[in-house]
Structure formats: structure tokens, C-alpha cells
């Protein structure tokens, strides 16, 4: 038993905030999925597709993703350093600023304040707020690790450190802009150069917001949940360094066949293919870890969240490089295939690992067990079915769209007008809304389960003879 307390209240605050923003982001997602097939569901000016779509992506990336990263990474940092946070009050202040920032972010996007760069829509005052948040986060990550009691840094810590550094560089460079008032700015870079900077950022923010911190959770919570050690330390090392090296070269695969110089496009494509190796390093490591005892899939309800999560990571990191190839890109780029790809990563990989990790953390904070493993199972299957229905539907319609755009008659004239190609999407877009609903219901089961676990834990705290705050170092 240790003589100190972990900063569990702050961790739980981040987790609950992430879940709240997750619900908001998913509801916005459902609305915009309806707007795609029912234009009357646009309510101008604030609730139109054009304004809601960035609110959906930012709300989920920064709100759900950011909250989960802050909470779970700080949790990992404390446990692996064997000490509480170096600046506990700073972390508490960060939690408050985080929620104020995300609320302002969503509202400002609905008001139409946007830089128009994908995943970097927020205007400059909010960009600065995010910088402050990140500095607060970095101070606790680096400070706590520097004062750790465990000499060796475990692989999860490498990924946390990589996340903090890379996101800082990406965020600052791409958000450089010329302010033209409090609510308006212009990207400092223009034209082709602007495109290149934005997709260097855009691809890597996915890499270092939705890959490296999630891998940190995977490498920490998979062994903790199953009691099985990571299969290969050497493979972890290889994967880590080649991933953080290779990622940053690949942004141009978003600009294939654009006016960007060809050499940059080709360089981006080549490194994208290279990335399969480090990505699958982690996939193989994960599979062989559980491979030591597959019965854990049956005996431990958490195992499947991590196994299916890393499976989608593996599929995602093969599909991505495939899309980067010119011959594939020309067919699927600009189509609904791409949202299908993105949602396999977010609804599959990220959601599975993050919710699995939260299921692990919340009971431990309260010295109890999960409220209901059965509800967790229902949540798992609904999320899985919803995500698969979503992605597969979008891949089919994406290929159809791409093929119809390209179809020509014998004399070289086009076979279909644009509206004909659009109208063919409607059945698939209806299906996507259904898929989103299934997913959303699954997530509500998750939220309910977590809240009930906390309630169960609080009831225990009230009873004599328990000391949940002094839970052993897990």
C-alpha cells in the first residue's frame, strides 16, 4: 500500500467530460447524416450541414478524443511513474479550461467562425486556448515522468511522449494565420503550399491524436486487463520508432492528382506504404500477446474490446495505404468511401480501445467492479454492428459513385450527369443513418454502465471498512 493518492478525481473528470462531448458529437453526427438525404432538416443559419459537420468532427476529435487522451494518458503516466501528478492543481485547472474551450469551440463553429482547414477549423483565439491546454498537459506528463520512481519507461510512456511532442508541432505550424478580427483569420500559407501544410497536419493529427495515444492505452490496458505481458519488447521498439519517423512524410497522399508537385505526391505515397510495417508491428504484438491465452476472450469481458480494436487498426492501416495508390485514389477519392474509412478508425479502433480502457479505469478509481458485464457486452456488439454497417455501406456507395463519375460512352462523352450519381446514394445514406443509430444506442449503454459503476462505487465509499482512495498500485 502506498502513502500517496493518485489524482483520480481529475482523471474521472476528464473521462466524464469526454463522454459528455462524445454524446454531443454523436448526436450532431446523426443530424448531419439525416441532412444528407433530407435537405429540409437544415435549420439555417446555425444548424446547416456546412456548419455542423466541423462541429461533429471537432466535437468528437477534441471533445471525446481530447478528454479521453488527457484523462487516460495522465492515468497511465501516474501509474507507470509510480507517483501522483507533479502538478495536481494544474491538471484540475486544465479540466475546467478543457470544457470551456470545447463548449466555445462547438458554439463558435455553429456561429460560422472557421478557418476552413479540415480538423483545424477553430479560429485563432480558440487555437491559443488549445495551446495553453496542451502546455498544461505537457507540464504534467514531462514533470511526472521526470520525477518517476520507476527507472525504466514502459512502451505506453513512449507513445504518450511522442503524442505530446508531435501534436504540439503540428498544431502550432498549421494554425499560423493572419488575424483579421477576433473571429476571422486567413491561413498564413496560400494555395498549393497551404494545401501541403494542411494535409501534413491533417494526416498527422490523425496519427498523433487517434493513433499514438490510443496505442499507449492499448499497450497499457491490454496487459492490465488480461494479465498477459506484451509479446515482444523488441517489436514494440521497432514499431514505435518507425511509426513516429514514417508518419510525418505521408500527408501528400491526401492530395493525389491535385496540383501539388508530383514528387511530393509520390514521396507521400511511398512512405504511406512503408507505414504498414510499424502499424502491423503493433497489430502482431497485440495478437501474440492475447495468443498466449486465447481463453481470456471468454473469461475476461474486456479482452475483446482491445482485440477487435487492434483488428480494426490493422484493417485501417492496410486500407489507408491502398487508398493512397494513384490507381485506387482516382476511383475512391472525394467519394463516400473516405468517410467509410475514417469511421472504421474512429468507431472501430478508437472507440473500442477508449471504452475498454474506461471500463478498466472507472471501477478501479472507486475500488469496485463494473456495474454490468452484460451491458458492456451489449454495448460492444451494438457498436461493432453499427460501425460495420456504416463503413461497409459507405465503401459500396463510394465505389459506385467513383465508377459513375468515370463512366463514359464509346465516343468519350459522360454517361451520367452529376445529379444522377448523387441520387444513387440515397439508399446508402439512409442505411448510414440507421448504422449511426445502432452505434449511438450502443454508446448510450456504455454511458449508462459507466455512470452506474460510479454510483455503485460511491455507495461503497459510504460504507464502513472500505478505503477506495487507497486502491493498490494497479
Amino acid at each position, binding site marked *: 500500500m502506498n502513502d500517496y493518492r493518485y489524482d483520480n478525481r481529475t482523471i474521472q473528470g476528464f473521462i466524464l467530460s469526454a463522454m459528455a462531448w462524445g454524446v454531443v458529437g454523436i448526436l450532431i453526427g446523426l443530424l448531419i447524416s439525416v441532412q444528407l438525404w433530407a435537405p429540409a432538416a437544415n435549420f439555417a443559419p446555425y444548424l446547416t450541414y456546412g456548419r455542423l*459537420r466541423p462541429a461533429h468532427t471537432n466535437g468528437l476529435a477534441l471533445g471525446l478524443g481530447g478528454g479521453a487522451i488527457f484523462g487516460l494518458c495522465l492515468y497511465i503516466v501516474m501509474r507507470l511513474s509510480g507517483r501522483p501528478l507533479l502538478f495536481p492543481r494544474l491538471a484540475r485547472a486544465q479540466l475546467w479550461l478543457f470544457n470551456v474551450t470545447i463548449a466555445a469551440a462547438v458554439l463558435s463553429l455553429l456561429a460560422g467562425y472557421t478557418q476552413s482547414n479540415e480538423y483545424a477549423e477553430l479560429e485563432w483565439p480558440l487555437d491559443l486556448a488549445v495551446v495553453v491546454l496542451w502546455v498544461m498537459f505537457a507540464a504534467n506528463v514531462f514533470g511526472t515522468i521526470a520525477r518517476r520512481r520507476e527507472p525504466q519507461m514502459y512502451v505506453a510512456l513512449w507513445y504518450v511522449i511522442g503524442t505530446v511532442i508531435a501534436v504540439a508541432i503540428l498544431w502550432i505550424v498549421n494554425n499560423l494565420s493572419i488575424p483579421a478580427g477576433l473571429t*476571422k483569420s*486567413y491561413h498564413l500559407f496560400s494555395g498549393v503550399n497551404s494545401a501541403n501544410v494542411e494535409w501534413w497536419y491533417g494526416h498527422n493529427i490523425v496519427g498523433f491524436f487517434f493513433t499514438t495515444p490510443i496505442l499507449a492505452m492499448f499497450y497499457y490496458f491490454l496487459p492490465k486487463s488480461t494479465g498477459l505481458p506484451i509479446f515482444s519488447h523488441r517489436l514494440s521498439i521497432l514499431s514505435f520508432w518507425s511509426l513516429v519517423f514514417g508518419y510525418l512524410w505521408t500527408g501528400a497522399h*491526401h492530395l493525389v492528382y491535385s496540383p501539388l508537385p508530383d514528387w511530393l505526391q509520390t514521396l507521400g505515397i511511398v512512405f504511406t506504404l512503408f507505414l504498414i510495417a510499424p502499424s502491423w508491428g503493433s497489430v502482431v504484438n497485440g495478437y501474440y500477446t492475447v495468443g498466449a491465452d486465447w481463453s481470456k476472450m471468454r473469461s475476461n469481458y474486456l479482452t475483446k474490446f482491445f482485440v477487435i480494436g487492434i483488428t480494426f487498426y490493422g484493417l485501417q492501416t492496410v486500407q489507408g495505404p491502398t487508398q493512397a495508390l494513384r490507381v485506387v485514389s482516382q476511383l475512391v477519392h472525394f467519394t463516400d468511401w473516405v468517410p467509410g474509412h475514417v469511421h472504421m478508425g474512429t468507431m472501430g479502433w478508437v472507440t473500442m480501445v477508449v471504452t475498454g480502457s474506461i471500463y478498466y479505469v472507472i471501477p478501479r478509481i472507486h475500488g469496485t467492479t463494473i456495474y454490468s458485464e452484460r451491458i458492456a457486452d451489449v454495448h460492444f456488439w451494438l457498436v461493432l454492428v453499427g460501425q460495420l454497417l456504416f463503413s461497409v455501406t459507405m465503401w459500396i456507395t463510394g465505389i459506385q459513385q467513383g465508377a459513375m463519375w468515370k463512366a463514359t460512352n464509346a465516343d468519350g462523352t459522360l454517361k451520367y450527369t452529376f445529379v444522377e450519381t448523387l441520387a444513387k446514394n440515397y439508399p446508402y445514406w439512409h442505411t448510414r443513418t440507421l448504422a449511426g443509430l445502432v452505434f449511438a444506442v450502443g454508446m448510450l449503454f456504455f454511458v449508462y454502465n459507466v455512470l452506474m459503476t460510479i454510483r455503485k462505487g460511491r455507495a461503497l465509499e459510504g460504507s464502513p471498512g472500505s478505503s477506495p482512495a487507497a486502491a493498490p498500485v494497479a
Partner: protein
Amino acid sequence: MSGWIYRKSFAFAVATTVVVLAGSIATMAYPMLRADMHPRLEALKPPTPLQLAGRDVYQREGCVGCHTQTVRPLPSEVARYGDYSKAGEFYYEHPFLWGSKRTGPDLAREGGKRPDGWHRRHLENPQSFFARSNMPSYAWLAGRPLDPAEVTDHLNALALVHPELRTELAAVRVALAGKDEMDAVVAYLQTLGAAVPRQSPRAADLSIPNPVANDPTAIARGKQLFADNCAVCHGDEAGGQEGVAPSLVDDVFLGQRPDLPDAAYFAMISGGSDAKPIEGRKGQPDGGMAAFGSQLPQKDIWSIIAWIRAEKAHEAAEGAKAPAADHR
């Protein structure tokens, strides 16, 4: 990688930073120093205050979420939209608005393709042109005033990197007088692709006869094709729509009398407004007719003309009673 670095957190952080910076410098920072990242087409003009205000509205409403602005160098894409996008077209674009999803069509070559009135009516009610379109209505942009002080601030900000924009500052108030956000967006849309000359149609031989003239099958087919492709602008019975497109069944063609031969119609449908000069007619300053040469096989175009001729004859027979009605 030797083991000590996993025990030294500072050294580890430095190593990670170096590794992350390698690709960033090679693919993001270094290209900025190269001329091929900052090209500018000679014909490219800086935005006027009204056009910039329109682009601001385009940004604010997230139009980039559904409309791309890059034509890829693929045959089908060039056929659908026009010449593929050139790097030098985007010199003044802060940021680029190429987009990543084409829920609606690409707009890179939209400028000059259709008249202002078409855009206005389409923005007000997209479904009135394309029944199955999923674009929301932007009718509410009409009547929303433009703020000269705001546009001045925006021009000033851009002038920090493009000093030539300063010359427009004095004219902001005049340029925006009496204009609303709808006017601004339409003005902006009309600039898209303006720096790239559209391929002008080849000279047409006006003596070629219509190979399917008076052929009942062709006329029936032409009627269907007209309904699918032309009626959105020219009206169901080719009677025209005020401010959008002229009647095709009255005795005026291209604003003049007398009528022209079928081959002139063919050139117009195939090449769009750009074909007007080769027919000796002046083009409208704000564009007009879209080109269908890449969308419709030649025989289909001739069939449409055959149907128009039949309608014309029909209208002339009836027209003795009243002048051609303005179908609206």
C-alpha cells in the same frame, strides 16, 4: 536502439522530436522554399472586395464540406468540369479550398459557366433545378447586408502578404453599396477558374445539316433529353425562364434575328457560351450557356435540336394568336 534511452526521459524526448521533425522538414518546410510551391498564373487577378466578401461567406457556410475545387487530370473529370486545375490558380487562396469530399459537384470551373440569375435561383431553391439535389436552401443570404468595415479588415489582413490588395481598400464602400451576401457569393462563384482560359470550341461548319431532322424517333428522344438536361434552365417547353435562360421557341436566337441553322444550335449546345464568337455573336459578360459536348453524344444533341425545331414549328403555328409566352 540501445536500452539506456528508455531510462533517460529528456534524451528520449529529444530523440523523438528529431525523428518527428525529419519528415516534417522534408515534406512540409523544405518545399516552402521552392518556387514550384508558389506559382502564379499571369491571368490571375486578386479578389475584389465583393468577391472576397463572397469567399468569406463561402468559408463561413462550410461550402467546402461538400464542394471540391480541384479538377483532377483524369479524362472523365476534364470532360465533366473543364480543364484540370493548375497550381498557379491558387496564389491568393488563404487557405486553399480544394475540399476532400464531393457530395456536390466540383466548382473549380464554375465561373462564367452560368448566368448570375441561375446561381441566385439555385442558391434559393436548389431543388427547383435538380429535384433530387440534397443541397440546403441558402435563400436567407439574400438581404443580409455586407459590412464594409469588416471587409476592409479582411483586405488589410491579406494585404500583409499581398500588398497589391491595398489598392482596393479605397473602393470597398462603393464596391459593396447595395449588395448583399447573396450577391457576394455569386460574384465569388463567377471568379472560379477565371485565370485558366477555357478551351474555345473549334470553328463550326454551319452548313452541316441535321442528320436526324424531322425523324419522329429522334424528336421523341430529343424531347426526353431536353427534359433531362435543358428544361432546368430553359423551361419544360423550352419557353425560357426570366433571368436564367432565354426561350428557344420564339423567333429570336442569341438575342438576334433571324434564326440560325441547326449547326449553330449544335455548336452552342456542344460548346456553350464560348461558341458564340465563332458564330459571330457576342458572348454575354456573365456567361450563359453551359457546354454539353462532353456529356451528350453527338446524335443526342442533334435529336434535341430536332425536337426544338418541332416545338418551334408548333409554337409558330399557335403563335399567330399571341406572342411567345414567357413561361414562368
